[in-house]
């Protein structure tokens, strides 16, 4: 199959590039080896940065975040919750840091407003009462699954082809150019050889592995971060610790849960996402210093992500990004670094470069045009708002007259699952979960997975055992550190799945 531009990687960056190029009239094809958001795009806290976090150490990233924050709010309001963010200082923190922070935010154009301790406690009652300073910024929470899916959908309607579950397995390089890309498709039926003019390597943590297929190298500083999901919304704002970026200083309320983050350690491989018990203890200890009530709350699960940082890695590494290519494969452009909040800007810069190579002189439109047609509301009810948040403009395709619920934790309607399966990208139970949230609640898909599977077998003829084992294996990885009530839930789950159904024991 021929294409002008082949984009590898269906995270925010790759999907953003596909959309950008398609809007400029460029013929392009995006391939993702797993589901969209397979890597760091799905393994982050879902924080829409104001820029505050990077203001002191990395002012360029901070300014980029501040600008992109405003852009995303205007083009993709459906997947963003305008929670606002607080940076809070505690008595044990360096008192001079707050002033440094204010100065840095001002010079990086990150809007902020100082609250008195009393105002802070009034607007965020769970904060510890000894809070000394509190700065309010434009942080928000964002649903990366919904954001990336909207980019994919919009890219498609502008003419791009996008395939998930399609892995690149090899490249043929002739005279310093990639001439052929070999592909393995989980669905079958797609030609296994692609012939591109330009290859954009936006594989995130896998960027070096993809570059190697063409004989190139992209030195990366892969860095693992752990997150802990708490049941329910534990705060109104994103709550940050007012200190130099460190471990366990972010609390993000999102959908029906609250995410505590994050940690940092070198990752051995792009899929080295394992979360240790020490990480869990650290996250609770550090975030509870700001919000003591978090200690008593129920932790549902852990998850990890691998940050595709530029070489060096760690907390000190720049959150900025780079485009690399070399003479060994002149038409392979690798993108490394960056972050979710600035994905669109990265996509714009990469697309500018690609268009330069193609001689296309169209201008970027992604910062002006909304991501998809405006969401059609079905009233202001909470269920309607939730549908819009998850599906954007596709919310109207969900039949809300059918009130049957498949996932009682997340109140997911049967017709949501049907609509998602009809759209075609969801092949597995986990794919359905990322789109509908069925299985993300405190029971972790214990029972709804069976009901969703029944619908999948009905509609797609999916193979139930492999789909179920894959899904339950994925959920189980997040439950290794379960404790308290969640551990009781996990014991019940294991009794039923292993003891009664005989799953998980099979060879």
């Amino acid at each position, binding site marked *: 199959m021929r294409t002008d531009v082949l984009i590898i990687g269906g995270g925010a960056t790759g999907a953003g590039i596909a959309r950008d190029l398609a809007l400029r009239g460029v013929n392009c094809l995006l391939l993702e080896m797993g589901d969209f958001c397979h890597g760091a795009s799905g393994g982050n806290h879902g924080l829409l940065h104001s820029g505050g976090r990077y203001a002191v150490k990395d002012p360029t990233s901070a300014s980029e975040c501040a600008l992109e924050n405003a852009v995303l709010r205007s083009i993709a309001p459906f997947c963003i919750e305008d929670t606002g963010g607080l940076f809070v200082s505690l008595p044990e923190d360096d008192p001079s840091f707050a002033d440094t922070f204010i100065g840095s935010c001002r010079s990086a154009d990150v809007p902020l407003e100082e609250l008195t301790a009393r105002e802070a406690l009034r607007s965020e009652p769970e904060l510890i009462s000894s809070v000394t300073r509190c700065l309010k910024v434009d942080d928000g929470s964002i649903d990366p699954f919904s954001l990336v899916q909207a980019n994919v959908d919009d890219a498609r309607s502008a003419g791009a082809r996008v395939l998930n579950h399609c892995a690149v397995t090899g490249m043929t390089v002739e005279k310093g150019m990639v001439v052929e890309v070999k592909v393995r498709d989980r669905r079958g039926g797609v030609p296994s050889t692609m012939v591109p003019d330009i290859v954009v390597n936006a594989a995130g943590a896998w960027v070096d592995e993809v570059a190697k297929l063409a004989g190139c190298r992209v030195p990366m500083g892969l860095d693992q971060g752990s997150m802990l999901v708490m049941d329910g919304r534990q705060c109104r704002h994103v709550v940050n610790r007012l200190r130099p970026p460190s471990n366990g200083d972010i609390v993000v309320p999102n959908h029906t849960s609250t995410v505590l983050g994050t940690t940092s350690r070198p990752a051995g491989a792009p899929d080295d996402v394992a979360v240790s018990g020490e990480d869990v203890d650290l996250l609770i200890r550090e975030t509870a210093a700001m919000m003591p009530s978090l200690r008593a709350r129920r932790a549902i699960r852990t998850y990890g992500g691998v940050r595709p940082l530029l070489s060096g890695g760690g907390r000190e590494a720049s959150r900025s990004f780079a485009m690399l290519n070399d003479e060994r494969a002149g038409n392979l452009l690798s993108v490394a670094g960056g972050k979710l909040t600035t994905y669109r800007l990265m996509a714009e810069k990469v697309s500018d470069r690609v268009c330069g190579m193609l001689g296309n002189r169209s201008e970027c439109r992604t910062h002006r045009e909304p991501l998809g047609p405006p969401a059609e509301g079905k009233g202001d009810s909470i269920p309607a708002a939730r549908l819009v948040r998850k599906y954007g403009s596709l919310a109207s395709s969900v039949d809300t007259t059918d009130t*049957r619920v498949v996932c009682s934790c997340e109140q997911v309607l049967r017709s949501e699952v049907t609509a998602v399966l009809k759209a075609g990208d969801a092949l597995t139970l986990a794919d359905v979960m990322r789109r509908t949230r069925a299985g993300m609640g405190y029971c972790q898909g214990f029972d709804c997975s069976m009901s969703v599977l029944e619908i999948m*077998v009905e509609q797609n003829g999916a193979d139930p055992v492999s789909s179920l084992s894959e899904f339950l294996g994925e959920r189980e990885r997040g439950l290794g550190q379960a404790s*308290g009530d969640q*551990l009781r839930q996990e014991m019940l789950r294991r*009794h039923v799945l292993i003891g*009664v*159904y005989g799953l998980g024991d099979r060879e």
Partner: protein
Amino acid sequence: MSHALVVGKGAAGTFSSWLLAKRGWEVTLVGRGTPSTALSTGCLRSVPNLCRAAISEFLNNESMPWASGEREGISRIGTSYRCWMSPAHSTWKQGETPKSIAVVGLDGHPSLLPRVASALLNGRKIRAAPFTLAGQVPSEVPLASSFRKDEAWEDLAEELQKMSVETILIPSLVTLQDYHRLDQLEGRCGRDVLEAITPLGSPGQRLADLMLSKAGEAGVTIWDGRKVTALDVKDDVVVGATVVGGMDARHLSVDAVILATGGPLVDGLVLKEREVSDPFGKFRVVRSAAPLTGGYDSLEGMLVNTEGRAMVNVAGAGDCLSSGSREYGSGLTEALESAYRAVRALEGT
């Protein structure tokens, strides 16, 4: 007559109460909440090596006959379920696998997943086809309550008659009182009726109901919905207990106690983070890296106090006991056997 207090109304508590009552004790059974027996599949997975005859007598019930031996059934998602003893309509004798099965689900209710189960059965070379009966049952209504009326059963029999198969797999629908309806259904539709093996549903509740009623028939005084909040201990002997129910608190003088309060899953043992502990603060708990296997320490059937001495008149039974190798799904048989051992230990005193 000696007075025994049994705490917990699951399999271990009811069976030990029943055994004690048969042996001439005056027994008070105090229980609350949902025991894990009621969450189970209502079948005995592993073969009891102890007291098989007593178990059979205890579980014997006119309206719900049992089948025992090497049995096999089908879980609600279509996987194979093997056990030693089950209600007659739950399993077949191993080796006598049905040739063809109609897997009948009810629209809108997730209790039996006809398509998933059929796909899994076909994968195991058992010819199966899914059917979904219309007439929506809202998923939040327990199936059993939708099938209280005769008309619902008439309609079901009529639908099932049309199917040209040997065996019909249906969701678990019936309560203990209604179990005879499965025989009637089999007679009406002329096919073998097989009930899907279902946890967290009516089969477990049936078993829990049956056990509690057998204890009552044997003369056990049952205080349901009450909680033992404190035990009075003098020189390693429990002499009394405080039982609370609502506003009412009573003190009870006792000669012996069996704790059959269940594991951390049902709050019999306190679970904090990943550690289990004794809610009474009197007995030693064996901690283990796997919280599933932690529980009360025991010495020749008697619980061990926090100083490490065996209690004189307190035995433990069921999931609240520490168990080195508790296998998933074997809890019921173990609970019954440990209840038997607890009674023997008390009789020895």
